[in-house]
């Protein structure tokens, strides 16, 4: 981002410097080089003129002397050819010098003008001498040489010229000197000017050089900044833990991605890879299709990114990836998708992938350890208030129950009703375990048994059953058995602890004494009823009679039966205090349990002063459960209707709670009684009471314990 903002700015400065240097170059050419050239040329011209002027400075005087010489020669009749020659040369060179001076900067000077005028006049008087080409002498008879007429004229011209030139010369020389002076000054000034020009040229060049240097520096810095930002981008992509990449309109991965991607997906090349190829084989086909659709939504304008985050199908996915060895491992990836908008459309979808395996596993472990931690604590707390021998007794019974469950599960069966009868059997056994666990307040066992029952309930609701449906039950059974094993171990340790603390003899004696009455004690029953009543928001008291006479062999079966009836009585029978008071009853419900022996055998009576059983309620519940057709229900006598409660799977309570409502209670009691070759009957009066009577033959007392 920062890079993008800086570079146009730098480009502007670069462009400004370029323009500046171009202006400078033009300036150097226009202001320094061109005038310098002109100046140098005029300087050269002035110099030439100056040289000519100084060369010709003596010419006027030479002319005077030459004319004098010519005149003398003419008088002595000597040879004049060389004089004439010399005159011509002087005149010509002076002509040339003057022409050069006129052409120079000095040409416009008044002095030069004047000199030119003077010379022109002088030149006119000299002309006859210069252009003379006749014979000046002739030999006479009188001996000697005489002047020819031409010669005479020449002599006259020479005289005239001498007079003029002699008079004119100082002025001419003066003018020439002044012109020379001017030219000298001019040359000196020109040189200064040229020096200044050259100096400014050098300066301008230096500035130009500096600018070039600066531009180069700027460019270098720009390039360095670009390189740096590129490196930084690279560093970021190399070190982030998240996998980043862009998806284009064709859902292909762009040219840039973070290195973490390679670690996450165990592959090297991603450029141009289609998103579907990346995930093919890692997630289910359906998930992949849903994900592609989801990305499609992001490319569309209609859906709001924030509002569809919740339905990202790859928010957390389980994938199977090759591990460092040759195998595959399960990992958890989190994908996040963001729109990347261009000018007017969505250009890319930015995808972030994070491997959250560690945190997912950690969270799971934490949950498990919390569960098992609280489980262990619950277990320990639950066991602390249970007598170890009572617990031992329970464990033995529970194991026996589960053994039955195991046997039932392994029975071969094919038919649907066979399966269903298996479920009913298992249900009864489990319910017994649950009931005893509840009595001993072993919440952990109770909860597991309840969870097991949930599975059974779910199976029972299925229209069709197969052998495979029972597989999860084996697992549940193992779990329950393992839990009982853990309880056993802990119980052993507690026993050892106790043994160490009390004398071995006393402990053994106490143990033998309590073994006879593990369950059917008034205290245990009252405690169980209290707990149950509290959970139901009710109040109940237990009145017992003769329970101490229950023979050891009947402790377990009758204990289970009483427990079940007590559960039913508190949950279904006894009303809440407010209801009871409104019906003119005592606020606290009463349950009476009485055991008696006679010559024919023994009997157990169980009575609560609760709401009683209403036949019609039972009938409609039976119809609802499909146990009876409405017609059958209509014809049913009340006495027959009451027997419905002994049917497997019958309950009037809609919602299953750990305490009651699975309808398995009374059929378990009926089964127990049947196993003891006994009979059970029910008497009830709506609003007043419900009473169960169990009668057992005398013979069973000794047999039951062995069964």
């Amino acid at each position, binding site marked *: 981002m920062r890079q993008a903002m800086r570079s146009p700015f730098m480009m502007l400065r670069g462009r400004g410097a370029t323009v500046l240097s171009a202006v400078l170059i033009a300036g150097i050419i226009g202001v320094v080089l061109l005038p310098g050239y002109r100046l140098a040329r005029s300087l050269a011209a002035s110099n030439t003129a100056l040289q000519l002027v100084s060369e010709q400075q003596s010419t006027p005087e030479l002319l005077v002397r030459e004319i004098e010489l010519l005149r003398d020669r003419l008088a002595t009749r000597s040879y004049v050819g060389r004089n004439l020659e010399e005159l011509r040369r002087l005149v010509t060179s002076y002509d040339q010098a003057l022409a050069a001076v006129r052409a120079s900067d000095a040409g416009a000077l008044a002095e030069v003008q004047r000199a030119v005028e003077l010379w022109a006049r002088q030149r006119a008087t000299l002309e006859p001498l210069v252009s003379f080409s006749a014979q000046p002498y002739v030999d006479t008879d009188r001996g000697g040489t005489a002047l020819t007429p031409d010669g005479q004229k020449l002599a006259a011209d020479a005289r005239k010229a001498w007079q003029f030139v002699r008079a004119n010369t100082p002025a001419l020389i003066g003018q020439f000197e002044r012109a020379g002076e001017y030219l000298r000054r001019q040359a000196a000034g020109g040189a200064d000017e040229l020096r200044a020009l050259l100096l400014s040229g050098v300066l301008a060049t230096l500035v130009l050089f500096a600018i070039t240097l600066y531009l180069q520096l700027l460019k270098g810095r720009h390039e360095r900044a670009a390189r740096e930002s590129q490196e930084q981008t690279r560093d970021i992509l190399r070190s982030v833990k998240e996998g980043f990449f862009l998806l284009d309109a064709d859902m292909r991965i762009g040219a840039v991605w973070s290195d973490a991607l390679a670690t996450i997906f165990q592959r090297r090349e991603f450029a141009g890879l289609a998103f579907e190829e990346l995930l093919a084989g890692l997630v289910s086909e359906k998930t992949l299709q849903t994900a592609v659709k989801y990305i499609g939504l992001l490319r569309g304008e209609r859906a*709001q990114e924030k*509002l569809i985050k919740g339905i990202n199908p790859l928010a957390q996915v389980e994938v199977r990836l090759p591990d460092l060895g040759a195998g595959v491992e399960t990992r958890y990836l989190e994908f996040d998708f963001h729109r990347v908008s261009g000018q007017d459309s969505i250009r890319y979808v930015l995808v972030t992938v994070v491997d959250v395996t560690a945190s997912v596993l950690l969270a799971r472990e934490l949950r498990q350890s919390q569960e098992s931690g609280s489980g262990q604590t619950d277990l320990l707390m639950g066991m602390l208030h249970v007598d170890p021998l009572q617990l031992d007794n329970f464990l033995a019974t529970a194991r026996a129950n589960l053994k039955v469950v195991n046997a039932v599960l392994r029975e071969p069966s094919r038919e649907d009703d066979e399966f269903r009868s298996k479920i009913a059997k298992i249900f009864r056994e489990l319910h017994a375990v649950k009931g005893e666990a509840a009595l001993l307040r072993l919440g952990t066992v109770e909860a597991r048994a309840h969870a097991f029952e949930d599975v059974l309930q779910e199976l029972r609701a299925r229209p069709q059953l197969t052998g495979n449906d029972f597989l999860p039950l084996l697992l549940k059974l193992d779990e329950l058995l393992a839990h009982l094993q853990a309880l056993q171990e802990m119980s052993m340790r507690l026993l050892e602890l106790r043994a160490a603390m009390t004398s071995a003899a006393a402990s053994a004696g106490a143990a033998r004494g309590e073994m006879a009455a593990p369950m059917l004690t008034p205290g245990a029953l009252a405690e169980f009823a209290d707990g149950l009543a509290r959970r139901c928001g009710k109040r109940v008291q237990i009145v017992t009679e003769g329970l101490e006479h229950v023979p050891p062999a009947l402790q377990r079966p009758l204990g289970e039966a009483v427990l079940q009836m007590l559960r039913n009585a508190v949950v279904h029978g006894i009303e809440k205090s407010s209801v009871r008071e409104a019906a003119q009853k005592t606020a606290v419900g009463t349950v009476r349990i009485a055991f008696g022996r006679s010559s024919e055998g023994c009997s157990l009576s169980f009575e609560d002063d609760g709401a009683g059983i209403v036949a019609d309620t039972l009938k409609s519940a039976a119809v609802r459960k499909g146990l009876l057709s409405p017609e059958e229900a209509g014809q049913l006598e009340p006495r027959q209707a009451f027997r419905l409660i002994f049917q497997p799977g019958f309950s009037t309570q809609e919602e299953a709670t750990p305490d009651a409502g699975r309808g398995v209670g009374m059929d378990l009691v009926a089964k127990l009684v049947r196993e003891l070759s006994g009979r059970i009957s029910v008497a009830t009066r709506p609003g007043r009471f419900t009473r169960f009577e169990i009668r057992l033959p005398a013979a069973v007392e000794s047999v039951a314990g062995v069964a």
Partner: protein
Amino acid sequence: MPVPAGPAMRRLRLMIVDDSNLIRRRIERTQSLPELAVVGSAGNGEEALEVFRRTDPDLVTMDLTMPEMDGIECIAHLVRLKPEVRILVISALADKATAIDAIEKGASGFLHKPFTDRQLNEALLELARIPQHA
């Protein structure tokens, strides 16, 4: 239900579609955005179309599983009737593919049931903020 007149004063009109009376009332009571006015509610897709034609809402909250006409079909109809309508799907559906189908049909967002008051208001605010489609 009267809505203040004038384009500057005009509040966004919200219709609530859900087959549960409880949820409808919950949404109506919970939404507390001053820029929204509930103009109608419906218990199924058919009814929703009828209420939509009558009240011309700008925003709609839409359940997916409803009798008569389900949410996805209803969304398609509503978008056909008024392309610029913005629809928030509010559903307990665990199946993301169905939710995505609903968005593909033209809904703008998805809110999972059960939701807190805050979640609902934030989602509605977000929905109201989307620029109108041309």
